[in-house]
């Protein structure tokens, strides 16, 4: 869709002359069965779209919120005597824990009997099949 068409569909009253010039838009209105002369797109009557005012950036609110969290975090860290390195260690320990658990699971699987290994393989295929089936569904958010 052209930018002019988009602007017209968003604000038909402000760009009323566009319909006379644009063949695509006239064809669209014909397809919908709406007579061009009688079209009555009242924007105020339409539900609020997710993109309306989405690009607005409230910098004072963002800066205030970020500053508030920063000040509280620094104050609590200073009070509890937590160095910044501890925060990094805390994040890395979760990843290390996951790696160790997965390594242990793989080691257990290697030592398991053939039946268990085959069962694990079948389960792996089944889960990934379900994943593929779920991924094939088209997103419907905007059309819902």
């Amino acid at each position, binding site marked *: 869709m052209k930018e002019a068409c988009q602007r017209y569909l968003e604000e038909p009253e402000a760009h009323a002359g566009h319909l006379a010039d644009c063949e695509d838009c006239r064809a669209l209105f014909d397809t919908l069965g709406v007579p061009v002369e009688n079209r009555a797109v009242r924007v*105020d009557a339409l539900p*609020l779209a*997710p*993109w*309306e*005012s*989405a*690009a*607005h*950036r*409230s910098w*004072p*609110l*963002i800066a205030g*919120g*970020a500053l508030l*969290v*920063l000040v*509280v*975090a620094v104050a*609590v*860290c200073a*009070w*509890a*005597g*937590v160095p*910044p390195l*501890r*925060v990094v260690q*805390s*994040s890395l320990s979760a*990843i290390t824990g996951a790696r160790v658990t*997965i*390594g242990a*699971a*793989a080691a257990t*699987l*290697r030592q398991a009997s053939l039946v268990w290994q085959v069962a*694990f393989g079948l*389960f*792996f295929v089944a*889960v*990934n099949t*379900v*994943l*593929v*089936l*779920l*991924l*094939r*569904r*088209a*997103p*419907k*958010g*905007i059309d*819902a």
Partner: protein
Amino acid sequence: MRKGVLLLAIVAAMIVTASIAQPAPLDIRPADFSLANGLAMVQRTAVILSLLFVWLIAAIVVTLMSAREVRYSSVELRASALHCFALGLVAITSFVLTAIVFSYLPSVIGVPLMIALAVFAIVAKIYGAIAVFHALGTIVAGARSREALERRRWLRGDLAMVLVGVLILGALRLVPVVGTIIWALASVFGVGTALATKFGRREPWFLAWRPVEN
């Protein structure tokens, strides 16, 4: 039929995920409320608040870079939450099982594949969490009508919704046990919506085969 399969998939994935990520049993005794445990709780709060600030900065940067994608994912999450949740559960289970399979392989092949999988999983989790922040912020603080939106001076736009979502989920994260569960659920929803919308691009993951029409 399709709903039945979806429900079965959700139940199966929940059992697997719960057995993999089983939390330590709660054992709260009077002796736990000592000074040392109180200090440990304050230190834990300090770490959570510092991580919350990191999340906030990451959310602001990602929203500035790709606001439309985050918004699409947020809309998808609100429109089909059950699908996103099911997809997230199955995807996390698949990540864990695939990681075990990669560990099973010889390290020359397995380690690079494992690193690629970890990067993909982390990116999906971070992006998805930001979409969840946006969705939660919109549900709680989003304008319900055009008049309400026009009256607002600051509390509108993607960035403000993400900020509100981060602050709400951050506050909930501070609650012991419940906060961890809520963040785990948010991660499941997040990974699901990230994958359902292909990181907000709304493109199909797989090409559909169609016979040539003569």
